[in-house]
């Protein structure tokens, strides 16, 4: 990316364009995160009637990746997998989520089945879903510190946390 685009400080979260790329023959779409809801609603009316999966990737150690020129990479990437039963087709949305403000609108009102999936992403990556009915941890204990699937959360570095163990807060 050139220095000029950095200086302009365009908030790409508001990008309403949807860019299509392909990964090993699979269809991938990119858009700004504030456009996520309308993009998904659009896809839904095109026949993508099931939200199969919501997950995330922490690109802290791997900033180089295949993105359209207009999309600048951020630390986190939200990945939403949609499936069309009529067209027998899949599509994957990749949304860039910045580290300093990890917020994304919830998909609950379009696909209520994303409730648990979003809680999992929140639990393991620390990405917040605005408007989610129950934004709590799902797999880790409620009082857990940190988000295990982040790349700066090292394996084996954190001692086992027990609620009433001596020394634990």
């Amino acid at each position, binding site marked *: 990316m050139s220095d000029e685009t950095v200086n302009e400080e365009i908030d790409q979260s508001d990008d309403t364009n949807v860019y299509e790329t392909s990964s090993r023959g699979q269809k991938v779409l990119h858009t700004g995160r504030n456009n996520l809801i309308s993009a998904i609603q659009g896809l839904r009316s095109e026949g993508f009637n*099931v939200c199969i999966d919501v997950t995330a990737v922490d690109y802290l150690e*791997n900033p180089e990746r295949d993105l359209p020129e207009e999309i600048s990479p951020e630390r986190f990437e939200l990945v939403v997998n949609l499936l069309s039963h009529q067209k027998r087709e899949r599509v994957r949305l990749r949304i860039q989520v910045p580290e300093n403000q990890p917020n994304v609108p919830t998909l609950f009102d379009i696909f209520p089945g994303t409730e648990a999936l979003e809680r999992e992403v929140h639990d393991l990556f620390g990405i917040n879903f605005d408007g989610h009915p129950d934004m709590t941890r799902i797999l880790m204990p409620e009082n857990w510190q940190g988000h295990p699937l982040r790349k700066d959360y090292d394996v084996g570095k954190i001692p086992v946390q027990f609620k009433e163990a001596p020394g634990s807060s």
Partner: protein
Amino acid sequence: MTDQVMANDEIDEKNNSAERVFRRGDDSAILRLSESEVQAYTPDDDRRMVINMGPQHPSTHGVLRLSLEMEGESVLRSKPIIGYLHTGMEKTGEQLSYLQGPTNVTRMDYSSPLFSELAFSLATETLLEIEIPQRATWIRMLMCELNRISSHLLFQATNGMDMGAVGAMIYGWREREEVLRLFEIITGLRMNHNYIRPGGVAADLPDGWRDDVLRVLDSLPDRLDEFDTLLTGQPIWHERLQGVGVINTAECLALGITGPLLRSTGYAWDLRKDIPYLEYDQVEFDVLVGTYGDCFDRFAIRLNEIRESIRIVRQILEKMPQGDYKIQDKKVTPPPRARIDESMEALIHHFKIFTEGFKVPAGEVYASVESPRGELGCYIVSDGGPKPYRMHIRGPSFTNLQVLPHMLQNCLVADAVAVISTVDPIMGEVDR
């Protein structure tokens, strides 16, 4: 239940509203309270109480815990609390090479381990852009269908036990053991096989495998008829299951439910048929659907899917081609043991694969298969190294579990056991 496949577009719009799954507030079926809030929660109405079921209840299939808000014997709202089996397998997956990966994912859904291995291997192979030999593909299909049989037999056993038909437990386990014995002959292990690997399968089918498979296939139909005698036709069985835990198609689609749960509502969706992978378009089988979306339909679908799988396995036996059981690409699969003694190059490849692992070009893919519980997907991001940068498994049990509060609403606590049982969650896959 009818075997007739209903066209997917002909779903009756009436009585097929998903409105209740969109509710957010107190009228929702989900008790949206955190663990500590549940403990402190006292309902305004003193006829109501919140009770805790599990995680150590025999019919919660492992360690599922439910908070139930009850009024008398009826469940008003509920919340599944999970995570008791969480061991960070997706994090572990980032520390293991692609060759070691199947040993990790196979422990997720422990009653159908070969499907996780398959999804992982398919994703890796798509990233590598390699085609595996025909025989390897057919061996994978054979193993997966046998695994579907053993998994559904385990369901028959646990479902019977949950319903109080303890005899069914012994019958189900007896039959399942026959299939597991077959797995032991072919893969060396009863469970957690690590048999399907990127590039093919771990070993060729052993001598006499055809007779062994046929012996199991021949014994099964009579024994499945015993289930029909013991369970399907019994009035008590009908009373316990029919009309309990009803869900409709629109709700299933909104919640992302797949597998027998979705098919029980009369909606024919099966990845093997609709988006065929491996060579499923080469075999004939029917997709079974239910009519009412209740516990009985789900039970009947699973019982009859065993019969369909037997039909598929018989066709696989006829069509099994000769050839290699793994790809002969020395960068992906280790060379034959004998070659290492005579070829320096083979020794180097062997050493590289088992120390560093093979490198996978950068990219990201999603691969999915139809597991006995629904769509099992694997999302892998590669940064070009020998280990996945991110490995995510989309477990069908995890998503399917969200249907519980909706099914449990207004049903008796005794029926809750039937509902949990026929959702058939495997907690290893839910918690990962």
